[in-house]
């Protein structure tokens, strides 16, 4: 079984963000970076599939400048066999432009599964996975919370709002993985050492034309300063009055 997992380098979301002088990008100074939360789940699922149902290999792939190599090495340390960087120093915001580069890379790669995290924790689009599937004309299941593969057939559960769906699909397929399906392993020291010797190929990203572009970034409008209306249960009647007559939400 040959599985590709797409991972994205994203800033640690606990940090304070500021906007760069061009008003269109994030000030990178002082930021710490990590692998996207959901991408970690996807990688763990892929590694477990190959371990349990091998032989096979997991390939980690990231699109971006050379700084993404740090995340690729992390994926190799977790157990991926090799890594691919699709090099682009100026990653577009447009998911379709990115999906075109990924589809070109995967087209004749012979992958049984191509996996993504459900959503990128920074840009929050959740578009690249299903777009890549569409460009490759592969079956696609998004936001998977439970997965079973038997032969060339898969069964997955998706959590919808207030409901759950069970879907079946044939391989090869594109899957996007939700949180909680499998906790990403920590790389062992042995894994970290081995990762240094594993192949990491760098190829230029053949991005499509970007039709979705960033005009500007801004900090969100501050909510009006919070107001503490009182202490203890005695403040409740005043709260109910405010909700009814001021906020008009009750």
């Amino acid at each position: 079984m040959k599985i590709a997992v797409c991972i994205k380098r994203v800033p640690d979301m606990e940090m304070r963000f500021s906007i760069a002088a061009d008003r269109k990008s994030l000030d990178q100074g002082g930021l710490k970076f990590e692998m996207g939360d959901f991408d970690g789940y996807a990688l763990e699922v892929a590694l477990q599939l190959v371990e349990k149902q091998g032989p096979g290999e997991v390939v980690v792939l990231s699109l971006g400048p050379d700084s993404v190599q740090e995340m690729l090495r992390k994926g190799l340390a977790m157990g991926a066999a090799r890594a691919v960087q699709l090099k682009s120093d100026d990653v577009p915001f447009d998911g379709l432009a990115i999906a075109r580069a990924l589809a070109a890379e995967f087209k004749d790669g012979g992958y049984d599964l191509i996996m993504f995290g459900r959503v990128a924790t920074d840009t929050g689009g959740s578009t690249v996975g299903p777009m890549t599937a569409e460009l490759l004309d592969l079956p696609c299941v998004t936001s998977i919370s439970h997965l079973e593969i038997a032969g060339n057939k898969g069964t997955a559960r998706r959590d919808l709002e207030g409901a759950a769906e069970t879907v079946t699909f044939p391989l090869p397929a594109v899957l996007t993985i939700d949180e909680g399906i499998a906790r990403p392993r920590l790389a062992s020291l042995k894994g970290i050492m081995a990762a240094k010797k594993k192949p990491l190929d760098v190829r230029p990203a053949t991005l499509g034309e970007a039709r979705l572009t960033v005009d500007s970034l801004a900090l969100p409008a501050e909510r009006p300063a919070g107001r503490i209306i009182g202490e203890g249960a005695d403040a409740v009647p005043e709260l109910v009055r405010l909700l009814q007559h001021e906020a008009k939400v009750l």
Partner: protein
Amino acid sequence: MATIFAFAEARGGELRKVAFEAVTGARKAADATGGGEVHALLIGGPGIASRAAELGRYGADVVIVVEHPALQHYSPEVYAATAAERLRAGGYRAGFFAASAEGRDLAPRVAAKLGVALASDVTDFEITGDAVIARHPTYTGKIIATLRLSGQPALVSLRPGAITPVESPRTARVETAPPAVDPASARVVVTEQTAGGAAVLDLGEAPVIVSGGRGLRAAENFKLVEDLAAAIGNAAVGATRAVTDDGWRPSTDQIGQTGRLVSPDLYIAVGISGAIQHLAGMRTAKTIVAINKDKDAPIFKVADYGIVGDLFEIVPRLTEEIKKARGGSR
């Protein structure tokens, strides 16, 4: 004047609230261009056509109904092919979807089929000249991106709850169409759909959410949160990640960066400190109430109304006062 497309999401033979939000968004876009038509696509099992008139109430001039016995559940490939075919044929300026679980699956497929721009999880938008300008919260809501979509049709998926459905009544013309591909040819097949119980209001649809955090101390104390939600009536129950990680509530109840992103009219945070991860999921709520024993908890910085104190005294009292207020107003 421009013609605008909207995808009307249905489940179990009923329209979802996000369907009215998508049509309202499309109506707003059409009106901004001088009053063009809104065409809504409604796909479902036999009988779904009976829902078309409801879309007219929110401003759909035309409802394209695709009824098929195999389309009672969402079928990604058939829905995407059908939506793409209509968008290709209709000369649309823009198309609106919901950024719901279904819409997030559907809209990117449609955009890729058409080779057009898609802005995902949009909270606000405008049409200017030949572009659509959309606002989208990024970096867990800490940065708002203003995005420009060029080309037509420009596709937008709207964050559930971000647009309030507004009535703009008209009698919609109903057209029927077949699915663009044979449903029997679909590779991805939904074999089962289990509802979370018809009585349970979904977090994305509920105008009020009452959420609980670690401050509740034990799973069984969520009864307080449930009682408050029941007293309010049209309320759903949410939880923090700490709570769903501990198994007090199912993971589908999680509100936050890695869970659901919600924008209800009223959000009541009970025993929630207000970690960044949680705030990312609810900071766009219109009114926020916080009940917490720690007066320095970050949740009070975003709460319109806060009460400091013991939630085990405050919440039952609030439930009681709301029941009283409700009783008096009837």
